[in-house]
């Protein structure tokens, strides 16, 4: 019963402010798709358009083959989980969950069975009679989820559902949601500003900023091959090394580097080389290597138990952060004395070059 979602050229403006700038998306049936971005990026607006709470200025929205962009929300058959849960305070848990079934004239016995099933699904069996006020944040979240799923909607939409929970609970719920998605296989659009969350849960992620989709792909795609400075900085931690590209020759601080990933530059031939902290090796300055190699001066080395965080600067002033795994600690401690010169090395396959802007 779950369907694919297709957006074509969806746009929305408020006066002169462009909230959505011609959005195209193909979300596959059963996919867990995340809209990721900072606040004001348009991700929530997009979700609200799909839900029907915001009327788009133009474009097409289809569930499966049905055009729904002009349909009012109550006929779209979407399950929505709001950031603040939006549970009806004057109804019990069971009444909340039963509400959409009541609207669909589901008979009493069937209704009861479905509510019980929904409660079981979110592991809240037996709490049906409770008042909403009596529940904890995490429990309310589950009720909201149960209510959104009980009528087997076409798609599930979630607007930062875990942001109001504390860290431990959030991680627990992430696992829960993933488990639920695996068993129900429901097309889901998930909105969040937390890139770790997006990476952990999604089949695909669309990174948004200023009403546009900057880059879309699997979490791995986005992490390993970011195509813009924005994505490189937004997802995970990255080092951005200014480079100049002439033909196929890439130079940084006078040193030639090899890049096997994609290379994108400004018209002037300048770009930023993106390399993740954990992909950098630290070598003694006298060691030779076949990898890309740059000289840096040590600033600080911070022992964090499970890793050693090293901070150094290149000759041109660029700050580099490196994460050394546990196996190299002892050796590193010798090399990484503040003020000392070290060599940082990385594989050509582990880096890409993006535009500076």
């Amino acid at each position, binding site marked *: 019963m779950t369907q694919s979602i297709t957006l074509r050229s969806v746009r929305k403006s408020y006066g002169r402010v462009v909230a959505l700038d011609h959005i195209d998306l193909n979300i596959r049936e059963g996919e867990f798709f995340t809209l990721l971005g900072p606040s004001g990026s348009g991700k929530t607006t997009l979700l609200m358009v799909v*839900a*029907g*709470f915001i009327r788009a200025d133009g474009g097409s929205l289809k569930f499966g083959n049905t055009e729904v962009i002009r349909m*009012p*929300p*109550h*006929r*779209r*058959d*979407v*399950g*929505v989980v*709001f950031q*603040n849960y*939006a*549970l*009806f*305070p*004057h*109804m*019990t848990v*069971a*009444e909340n969950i*039963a*509400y*959409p079934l009541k*609207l*669909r004239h589901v008979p*009493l016995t069937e*209704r*009861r069975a479905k*509510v019980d099933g929904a409660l079981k699904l979110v592991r809240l069996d037996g709490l049906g*009679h409770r008042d909403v006020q009596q529940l904890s944040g995490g429990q309310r979240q589950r009720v909201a989820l149960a*209510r*959104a799923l009980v*009528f087997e909607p076409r798609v599930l*939409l979630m607007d930062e559902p875990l942001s109001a929970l504390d860290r431990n609970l959030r991680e627990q719920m992430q696992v829960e949601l993933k488990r639920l998605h695996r068993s129900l296989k429901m097309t889901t659009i998930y909105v969040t500003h937390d890139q770790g969350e997006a990476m952990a849960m999604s089949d695909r992620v669309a990174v948004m900023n200023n009403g546009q989709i900057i880059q879309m792909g699997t979490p791995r795609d986005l992490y390993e091959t970011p195509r813009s400075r924005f994505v490189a900085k937004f997802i995970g931690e990255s080092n951005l090394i200014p480079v100049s590209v002439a033909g196929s020759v890439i130079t940084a601080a006078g040193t030639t580097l090899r890049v096997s990933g994609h290379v994108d530059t400004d018209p002037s031939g300048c770009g930023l080389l993106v390399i993740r902290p954990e992909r950098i090796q630290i070598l003694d300055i006298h060691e030779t290597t076949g990898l890309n190699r740059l000289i840096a001066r040590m600033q600080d080395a911070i022992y964090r138990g499970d890793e050693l965080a090293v901070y150094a600067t290149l000759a041109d002033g660029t700050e580099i952060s490196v994460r050394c795994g546990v196996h190299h600690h002892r050796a590193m401690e010798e090399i990484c004395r503040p003020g000392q010169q070290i060599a940082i090395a990385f594989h050509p396959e582990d880096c890409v070059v993006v535009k500076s802007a």
Partner: protein
Amino acid sequence: MSAVAISSGGNEGELAFALAKDARRERWVMLALTIPGIFVVAGVLLSPVGWLIWQSLVDEGGHLTLHHYLTLFTEPKRLSYLLNTFLLSAEVTTICSLLAYPLAFALTTLSERLRKLCMFFVVVPLLTSVLVRTYAWLIILGRRGIVNNVLTNLGVINEPLDLVYNYFCTVLGMVHVMMPMMVLPLFAAMKSIDGDLARAASSLGATPSAAFRDVFLPLTLPGLFAGATLVFVLSLGYYVTPSILGGGKVIVWAIFLEQTVSFNTQWGPAAAAGLLLLAATVSALILARVVVGVKAHQPTL
């Protein structure tokens, strides 16, 4: 006492005691700040009421008696005043509720600027003297007032209608006076309802009117009830508007009280009547509290 004994055990206990004393003193000072207020209320409110209670229970000889209370119930005229007052109050409350609800709701749907403008029309009447508001109805509904003039000019009537100095005008006047007092708490209650609830209902399949019926309306009922209680209780004891617009034909309890005081040298009957009004008011308030508190819903799956 040796230095050792002072630095252990003994001093700690003293400190704790002194701290507790300080805390107590602080509390007393805070409570003392409320004394002038309490003094005023006790002096100016409780003593006259207490006095009245005393007066209602003694006869001319100074002996305790329930005679004054009994006459209230045995004289049919007095009973009818009581009944009329209740009916009038109920009517005014009902009409106010029916009008204030859509008004408050409409206010919630407006933009901030428009809402401020509309609030002007709700708040300024509250700040205007009751006498002005009541007098205005005399002008509008009087024999040479707007309504009569318009109707005469249109040829609908030949003789001006008697629209003032009767029950209808009294109800109208009181509704006019009470409306803002119902609109404001209702509006506040409606405003506090989470906007996402409407959207949630909508996403679950509720048409706009179903969402209103199932979510909005139930959540505004406490506010409606509070406003209605306020208006009802005020109407029970209201004096000014019925006195002016009723033309002597509408005798509510407050008017009866005033007449009793003006025409009697004995204070017993008036005191008893007044306390009966107080009892009615307090009962209504308690009843309202109980109903709201006990409002447990029956789970209907």
